[in-house]
């Protein structure tokens, strides 16, 4: 059939259509108000209640609204005063006496004091959720004592030398106004958990103004903010911060390029690459305590043989993984102690690609013909695993290991690993405070097998003894020596495939300045401002 287009269509409509598309309005960069910061992120804020937060995602909203008893200075791991002006520690490290800052008010106008600290501590422990679990390792319901209106004593049941890091980054110690919380305590909800999940009344630079779950959270400047310090949550410069949930990374990127948002979080590595060359946009790279690694089940044949684990470690092309998965922006891991942690040793032995050695080790293990195995991974745990799993499959094929990939939803993968019903798995781990105990206890101690996320199932008496000692050792020199020995044992035995420490990239409009991003994956928005 002959397709005959009318002349008027050819002469007018077609050129008009093409013209409009090619030369039309084009990039009409919208502009967010100067006094407002609009952040786009794919991660929703699950809860605002420090007694209930389940994941690092929850910290985002809390960081805007609360202050901590002690904090980290800017983007460092140095613990500095925040709501506690000063503190003293007993010689055995068991008791810390905090002197609280005076003149600080909650967002409902009531004063912050020692009674508020005690109230929040008691509530958190009674709620007995994730935050309580973190603290129960070192403390109990009697740990917090009110000495006077502005003095609080914290008594550890099992002292840890990193208790201040625990407050600053690990579990955090945030405070809601007792007066505010108490009005929502009811007989069917004696701790006001339901109300406080989506409401807050802290002392921080911003107040929660709007909560649209999984869509938008708006924080407005708290006029009565005590001002912070130059190192910790200084006085806010924006009147409002709007936190928008944009799940799709391409849509998020488009909104940033268009100027409808000022900051975009959690963009994939290839988007970051392109945005770093986009006019009007800049990228801030922040070191964070996040690592990507391979778990090998050390109690399941053939991975119970150290030679097999070492062979796998020598078969991986780490540089290629970093190049393709992270676009070159990651650093090789030195054991499980990341850069910034006490005991971090950049010179610790690292496995590098050496196929001959890998094949030799397979031969020594009696497996020169290879074997079949399965690699579990979850793309909802980490986007990069989709590509990484395929790359690992191809590397191990070269030494005769036939890997089947098994993609799972994260909860299912966790359950499978808890039962030990797996051989290999990809995992990420993010630390929000530099605790060498966590980086050893949760990786190498048999007490954390299964339930508590140590899925290597590797048992070594010397490592166990060292870790037990590390938990009680306050002498820094001795601690570092112990950490190094534990790390060496972990690496020599190829307990994990130690891949890399992944940086965090935040893309933002080029007029946004002074965004702080702490390595514990904390976004500190209050010092940020927009250049005029």
């Amino acid at each position, binding site marked *: 059939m002959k397709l005959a287009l009318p002349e008027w269509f050819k002469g007018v409509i077609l050129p008009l259509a093409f013209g409009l598309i090619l030369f039309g309005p084009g990039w009409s960069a919208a502009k967010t108000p100067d006094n407002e910061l609009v952040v786009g992120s794919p991660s929703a804020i699950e809860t605002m209640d420090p007694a209930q937060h389940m994941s690092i995602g929850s910290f985002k909203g809390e960081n805007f609204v609360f202050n901590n008893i002690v904090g980290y200075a800017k983007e460092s791991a140095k613990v500095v005063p925040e709501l506690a002006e000063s503190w003293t520690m007993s010689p055995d490290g068991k008791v810390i006496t905090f002197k609280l800052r005076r003149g600080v008010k909650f967002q409902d106008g009531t004063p912050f004091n020692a009674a508020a600290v005690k109230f929040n501590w008691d509530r958190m422990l009674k709620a007995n959720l994730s935050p309580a679990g973190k603290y129960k390792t070192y403390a109990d319901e009697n740990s917090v004592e009110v000495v006077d209106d502005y003095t609080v004593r914290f008594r550890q049941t099992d002292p840890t030398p990193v208790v201040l890091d625990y407050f600053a980054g690990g579990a955090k110690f945030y405070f809601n106004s007792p007066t505010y919380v108490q009005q929502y305590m009811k007989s069917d909800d004696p701790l006001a958990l339901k109300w406080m999940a989506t409401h807050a009344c802290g002392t921080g630079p911003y107040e929660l103004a709007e909560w649209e779950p999984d869509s938008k959270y708006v924080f407005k400047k708290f006029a009565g903010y005590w001002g912070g310090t130059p190192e910790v949550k200084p006085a806010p410069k924006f009147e409002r911060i709007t936190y928008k949930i944009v799940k799709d990374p391409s849509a998020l990127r488009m909104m940033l390029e268009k100027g409808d948002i000022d900051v975009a979080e959690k963009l994939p590595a290839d988007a970051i690459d392109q945005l770093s060359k986009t006019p009007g946009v800049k990228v801030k790279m922040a070191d964070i305590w996040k690592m990507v690694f391979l778990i090998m089940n050390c109690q399941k044949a053939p991975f119970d043989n150290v030679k097999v684990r070492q062979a796998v470690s020598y078969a991986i092309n780490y540089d290629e993984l970093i190049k393709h998965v992270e676009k070159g922006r990651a650093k090789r891991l030195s054991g499980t102690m990341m850069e910034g942690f006490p005991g971090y040793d950049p010179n610790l032995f690292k496995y590098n690609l050496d196929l001959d050695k890998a094949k030799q080790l397979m031969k020594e293990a009696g497996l020169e013909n290879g074997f079949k195995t399965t690699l579990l991974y979850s793309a909802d745990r980490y986007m990069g695993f989709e590509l990484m799993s395929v790359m690992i499959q191809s590397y191990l094929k070269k030494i005769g290991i036939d890997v089947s990939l098994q993609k799972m939803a994260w*909860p299912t993968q966790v359950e499978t690993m808890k039962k030990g019903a797996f051989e290999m798995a990809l995992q990420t781990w993010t630390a929000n405070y530099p605790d060498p105990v966590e980086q050893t206890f949760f990786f190498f101690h048999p007490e954390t097998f299964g339930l508590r996320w140590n899925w290597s199932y590797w048992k070594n008496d010397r490592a166990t003894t060292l870790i037990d000692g590390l938990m009680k050792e306050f002498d820094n020199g001795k601690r570092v020596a112990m950490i190094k020995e534990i790390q060496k044992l972990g690496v020599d035995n190829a307990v994990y495939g130690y891949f890399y420490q992944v940086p965090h990239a935040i893309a933002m409009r080029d007029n946004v300045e002074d965004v702080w991003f702490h390595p514990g994956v904390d976004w500190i928005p209050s010092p940020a401002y927009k250049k005029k």
Partner: protein
Amino acid sequence: MPAFLLKRILLLIPSLIGVTVMVFVISHVVPADPVGIALGPEATQEQINAMREAWGLNQPLYVQYGIFLRNLVQGNLGYSLVSKRAVTEELGYYFPATFELTTASMILSILLGIFIGIVSAVYRNRLFDHLTRTYCVFGISMPVFWLGLLLLLLFYVKLGWLPGGGRIADGIQVERISGFLILDSLLTGNWEALGSALLHLVLPAFCLSSSFLATISRIARSSVLQVIREDYVRTARAKGVPEFLVMSKHVLRNSILPVITISGILYGQLLGGAVLTETIFSWPGMGRYVVRSILHLDFEPILGFTVLVAILYALANLMVDLLYSVVNPQIRLE
């Protein structure tokens, strides 16, 4: 009619029981522990046990199901393990967004689909028919997430004609009465909000409707083609009835039944949420909500969602049956 309606409502009960039993069993036998996930790695066994007890998760499955049914009868769908909010409250928040998006896309699909179907049938094998046939292949095979991104790239980024996501522009406040933004804007006379809500609906509704439009237009076309060849249509034309009346009174009325059937099925399906479209356009709908619940194995939202969708699906099918009798009075409802 009342007897028919009562019968259909009563038939819903065993359907709901069947669906909820199935979903309940499947979600509880999946090898994953939502409590362990919720509490994180530092959780002790004591805490996990305490939370299981508090949420009734340590009871036998049949007891848990019984409690769920008892609560369901009282209108209580339980609480989300993740957000700690009542499931009814959460569904009340997410459902209006899905309803607006779904209804807009179905209206677009049905109106345009019928129009395209009729014109394609009348002018079959002409240019219009070829163009629409090409569109139908494109509409059915194009992945919705890809189409969504292309639409954003063109209409949002390049042309700047339409917004890039969300339900309404930032800064526009609407008093929440029903949760349906368009309705609430009309009820409060907030024309700025109405305009913004409609504008935000354009791209996601078009994206979601693309494959349904293709399906409906093809079904409409073949149905019209079949009817247009009937004797009574030829007779009507021979008697000098105006073509418009021939098409509207005789052809459309008799060819629309398959369109109504497929529309009912698609509508019921869509009311369960369209996670890909919602993701691309940052639309806070039920699709995203249920995916989040599934990934966290949050049982009560999953069950609550299932109950709601089962009811909506049944209502959509009931609506189809009622429309049959309206369009064709010869069809008796029994």
